[in-house]
């Protein structure tokens, strides 16, 4: 395998976690709810998947179980932030602490063991024979098609080409106007927060079932926070969110290749790349592309609880 193919293979594999979690975050933020619990949700998804496949060795079942646990935690988060309207930042941080702590506690008995069943690569007929992209994309596990094709384009169509999607965005931009137009604001927020949380947990399942096939305490390694940052970088859109996940997968892959080829840089510094890169990628665009600001703007009601009447 040549260098480019190897880099892209790892990029698609590593970027899947970020792309999936970032798309989940897009769903929640588009209806006006910041979910800073992504890190904890990924951890819970990962440990759920590990525990499930060790009892029933089917990666698909593990993935679905993680989606369910994610939706459950999402419902708890939505109950606090949407129904009770508690502070979203605090609840999000709390969810990160709960998810990370709980996953590490449960994970103690699975630590260091290989995951019982993982997603295997499937070679697509004809397409896998293409140069570079064939081995790098069309020979991967089946989830990459969900992450890089079905979800981004499906969600994009849903959000920008359907009435439902317009209602959804209205809830995030101006909930009072949406409410007056008869859109059920609370239902939309509750539903998409749960769906987003399910995707974040799915990202965790993908992490241990397809990318790093073992559980360890630091396995999530801040990917949830990078995903939250990527949403800003992607301008709250699903297709750019998936692409920026891929971009960061590529940066991670560069670090791996650097270690494998013995570049004269300590591995610790190569591991810093994704974090430092994320910071650069959310600061630089703000300064460089002043004209893009309107296009990339956050939903106007992001982070604000909606009270129909404050009396």
């Amino acid at each position, binding site marked *: 395998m040549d260098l480019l193919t190897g880099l892209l293979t790892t990029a698609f594999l590593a970027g899947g976690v970020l792309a999936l979690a970032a798309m989940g975050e897009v769903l929640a933020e588009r209806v006006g709810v910041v979910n800073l619990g992504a890190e904890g949700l990924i951890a819970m998804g990962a440990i759920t998947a590990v525990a499930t496949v060790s009892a029933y060795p089917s990666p698909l079942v593990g993935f679905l179980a993680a989606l369910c646990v994610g939706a459950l935690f999402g419902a708890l988060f939505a109950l606090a932030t949407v129904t009770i309207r508690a502070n979203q930042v605090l609840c999000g941080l709390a969810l990160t602490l*709960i998810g990370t702590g709980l996953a590490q506690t449960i994970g103690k008995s699975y630590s260091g063991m290989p995951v019982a069943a993982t997603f295997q690569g499937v070679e697509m007929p004809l397409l896998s024979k293409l140069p570079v992209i064939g081995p790098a994309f069309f020979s991967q596990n089946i989830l990459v098609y969900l992450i890089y094709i079905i979800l981004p384009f499906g969600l994009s169509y849903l959000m920008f080409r359907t009435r439902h999607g317009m209602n959804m965005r209205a809830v995030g931009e101006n909930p009072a106007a949406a409410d007056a137009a008869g859109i059920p604001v609370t239902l939309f927020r509750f539903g998409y927060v749960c769906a987003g949380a399910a995707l974040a947990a799915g990202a965790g399942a993908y992490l241990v079932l397809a990318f790093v096939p073992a559980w360890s305490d630091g396995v999530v*390694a801040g990917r949830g926070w990078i995903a939250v940052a990527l949403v800003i970088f992607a301008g709250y859109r699903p297709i750019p969110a998936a692409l920026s996940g891929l971009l960061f997968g590529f940066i991670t892959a560069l670090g791996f290749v650097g270690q494998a080829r013995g570049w004269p840089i300590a591995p610790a510094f190569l591991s810093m790349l994704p*974090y430092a890169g994320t910071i650069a990628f959310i600061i630089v665009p703000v300064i460089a592309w002043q004209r893009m600001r309107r296009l990339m703007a956050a939903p106007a009601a992001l982070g604000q609880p909606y009270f129909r009447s404050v009396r």
Partner: protein
Amino acid sequence: MADFRLQRLPSTTPAAALGARILAIALALVIAGVILAFVGKNPLALGLQVVTSSLGSSFGLEDLGLLVIPLILTGLSVTVAQQIGAWNIGAEGQFYAGAFAASAVGLFAPLSGGWSLVGMGVAGAFGGLVWILIPALARAYANVNELITTLLLNFVAILLVYYVSTDAWRERGGVANSATPRIKAEIPEFWGLVHWGLPIAVLLALAMAGLLAFTRWGYEVRLIGSNPAAGKYLGIAARRHLITVMLISGAIAGLAGMLEIAGTVHRLQGGISNNYGYLGIMVAVLARGSSIGVIFAAALMAFILNSGIILQTQGLTTSTVLAITGLILFLTAIGDELSHYRVVRDKS
């Protein structure tokens, strides 16, 4: 017939907020206890063991005293930033950066005794300050969310400390090969294991409280924090205040890292912070913006953290403490919102 309905008040009373916190902690401990009972442990016996071993002996109290030092400072760091409406989620990274810079001075600077400690203190604060510099400037000049930038730098700082303690500054021929040589300059103890960092931390919290409450600068900072638009109309240099306050916040967390190195651990190693930065967020939320409240909230969090360390022999981990802390934070956030409501009676 009179109807009852809920009325939401724009602000909540301190008593209601305190009540919400006490209820949240109690409820979180009950939930944790029920889960422990469910997995076949006796929560009451564990609780009794925790209380007797952390409060019942001078050893236990000294351990609490050591834990409370970094928690006061990281809690203070988050609280100070909150005054101007900034979230410093990066106290963990600034703690590591402060520990790193202080160790550099302690290991390599040709200073002796007291001067070495002073140099380490300055370096520690400066390390924390440098670590928050980019997030502060990005927030001030480009309105980039400081929550995410400060948090991501945590991972960079942890990797940096991991690198120097296992590679560049590693103690050659040491037993574990994962720490620097022992740093000679030490903060003296005044009570058992507890060193002079404790009074320093408490004094710093009191000084910040005084600065914020009684000076013009403190007034302007609090004003911008509670109403940015009003600050603008009054001609307050909001941007300069924001940068200053965030840098102070980082410096305080960096000093916490220095005190941990010079007073408690005496060598730089990976995992030098017991999640102090993240627990500092919890301390700040419990203290509800009061720098003096930070001292009491830190004592409470030190007790909870110490409980987790004691219960490690019972098969629990510090991760469990993290989860319980998260639960307390979650319930506090809910309680804060619910304490805005009161029941009123409609007369008809």
